[in-house]
């Protein structure tokens, strides 16, 4: 564990912070932006609506993108971390095995129209995939990726980005962040060299005047979001209270369906399986979740996390204690998907608020 500080340094290096360059984009040019991306050879992923379901899909024309709504059902993490992907394949011959390192990794990719909370998930997960061993599947895809996010002008009761240190117009993780500042104009904050390079190639951006400010545009949604819990109170409580009756009380209704982890932009646990025929096969990486009973079960049958209460605690502990301990960031962007889509309304906000209230009360007593 001596490498801790070095690892943190590494992680920080990934997020090259620089002064944003302010530009503008006319609303009528938004579709052209996507078209330019396609023309430049990017695989473009955007929210796509099918009935009530909004997911991130590869699109071939700007009209397919759906930018309304709060958040998409599933997060754009699937672009870098597909729910199922081959990581190599092999042929089984009579006296020989031929391993082929043939995973389909690198194409320039553009994520268009994600929310700032989703964009923020990428630098958080960079830390893990660059931690110690370098995961090329994540890192190489990430290098070839441009993220164009759009600020939120609305939110719902499940959103809590402001409570985890982000904002509806946070530039974290975006290469270019678009904020609708007037009826016909986006303010474009170009955050990275990648973004600048892309903006230049499209030729669609104009210099921004000094009068534009996104604060006014996002003021209403900021106020609506408010603060739902005190983040600073969470970790100190978690540090002390691995055992606490609170856990059972707030998670007993959890049925272990794992939807929270599957829709989460920062949950990244996976499984490695072989799928094969007599003459060959592949190693496949699939999403997996700490909420599943089989996740931790030993070969002997012993399960270190034998009930749903301990499995749910693990999810919260991992996001709000272990990840900050190891990698210096909360593994959560407040997108609210887990709250929104939990069939039993376990409600992470409620749990975190419960913790932060308890901690407050505790401090008061002292």
């Amino acid at each position: 564990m001596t490498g801790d500080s070095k690892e943190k340094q590494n992680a920080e290096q990934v997020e090259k912070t620089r002064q944003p360059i302010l530009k503008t984009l006319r609303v009528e040019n938004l579709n052209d932006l996507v078209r330019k991306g396609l023309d430049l050879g990017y695989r473009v992923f955007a929210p796509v609506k099918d009935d009530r379901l909004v997911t991130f899909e590869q699109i071939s024309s700007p009209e397919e993108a759906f930018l309304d709504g709060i958040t998409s059902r599933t997060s754009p993490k699937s672009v870098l971390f597909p729910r199922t992907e081959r990581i190599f394949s092999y042929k089984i011959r009579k006296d020989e095995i031929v391993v082929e390192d043939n995973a389909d990794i690198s194409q320039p990719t553009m994520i268009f129209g994600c929310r700032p909370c989703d964009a923020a998930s990428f630098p958080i997960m960079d830390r893990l995939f660059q931690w110690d061993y370098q995961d090329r599947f994540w890192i190489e895809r990430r290098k070839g990726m441009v993220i164009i996010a759009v600020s939120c002008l609305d939110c719902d009761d499940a959103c809590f980005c402001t409570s985890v240190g982000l904002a509806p117009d946070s530039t974290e993780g975006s290469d270019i962040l678009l904020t609708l500042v007037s009826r016909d104009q986006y303010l474009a904050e170009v955050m990275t060299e990648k973004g600048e390079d892309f903006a230049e190639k499209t030729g669609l951006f104009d210099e921004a005047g000094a009068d534009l400010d996104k604060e006014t545009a996002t003021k209403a949604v900021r106020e609506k979001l408010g603060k739902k819990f005190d983040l600073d109170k969470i970790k100190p409580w978690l540090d002390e209270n691995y055992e606490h009756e609170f856990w059972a009380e707030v998670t007993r209704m959890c049925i272990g369906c794992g939807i929270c982890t599957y829709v989460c932009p920062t949950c990244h646990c996976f499984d490695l399986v072989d799928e094969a025929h007599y003459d060959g096969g592949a190693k496949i990486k699939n999403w997996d979740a700490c909420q599943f009973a089989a996740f931790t079960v030993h070969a002997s049958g012993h399960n270190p996390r034998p009930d749903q209460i301990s499995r749910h605690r693990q999810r919260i502990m991992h996001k709000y204690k272990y990840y900050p301990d190891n990698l210096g960031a909360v593994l959560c962007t407040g997108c609210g998907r887990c709250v929104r889509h939990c069939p039993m309304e376990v409600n992470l906000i409620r749990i975190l608020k419960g913790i932060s209230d308890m901690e407050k009360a505790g401090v008061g007593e002292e």
Partner: protein
Amino acid sequence: MTEEHAAAVQPTVAHSGGNGLENIYLPQLMVIQEITQETPDVKSMKLVFKDEEMQKNFSFRTGQFGEFTVFGVGESTFNICSSQTWKDHIECCFRKVGRVTSALWEMNEGEIIGFRGPYGNWYPVEKMEGQNILFIAGGIALPPVRCMIWHALDMRDKFKDITILYGARTVADLVFKRELEEWQKRDDVTIVTTVDPGGETPDWKGKIGFVPTVLKEVSPSSDNTIALVCGPPIMIKFTLPVLLEQGFAREDILTSLENRMKCGLGKCGRCNVGKVYICKDGPIFTAAAVALLPEEY
């Protein structure tokens, strides 16, 4: 080859760098050189890299583990149960319990498996040098201790007294029987073997009793001694208090945790216990470190 396929296998221009990170999940091929059936359901295997150059350059530290692939079936985590002092091959030892181990069980000498590793931490050999070492193992958990036993024996003059206490449920369940006999014959090692009551055979010459009980009888000194304990959770649970009673400090007791793993690289999240990833920060922990972990192992 279609254009699209070309794009899929080669980094495109817009893809900056193309600095060719390695695929860390890719296994190396190893040939099964020798198989020994240790007990009715345990086998050990000697493995060599198919690529000679690879074998020459391969190095690891005693106590590390690897991810072993049976192609077409899956991957499983085993400790490398040979010592780092052995250069010409590595060994692994497994019990036939799951999908991968059952497939591995059916394999023959000369067949090929995959290997990724070495992963994880290793025994703090430098700290152990010049000290007495007490090895305590139960059942199938001898292999992760055995690598260190051989390491110590190969560099015998660097260590003081070596005591081995090994127990299994029955005589048939003792693994590495040949080596147990070999160690028995040496005069620079004290070895005590035991089987659970009822597990003995008429000609059994070792002790009868559970490991913690026998440990009390043996009552090794804790002076300048490091204890290595490996075994089923229940054995560890009852052995620790005995060691503490004998005056061992928690810092001087080492154990190896065996959580379920998949990637071995600290990514997949499976072996996360507290802030620790067993695969990356472990598998070897002092009892003091284990005491800090939530009980999820």
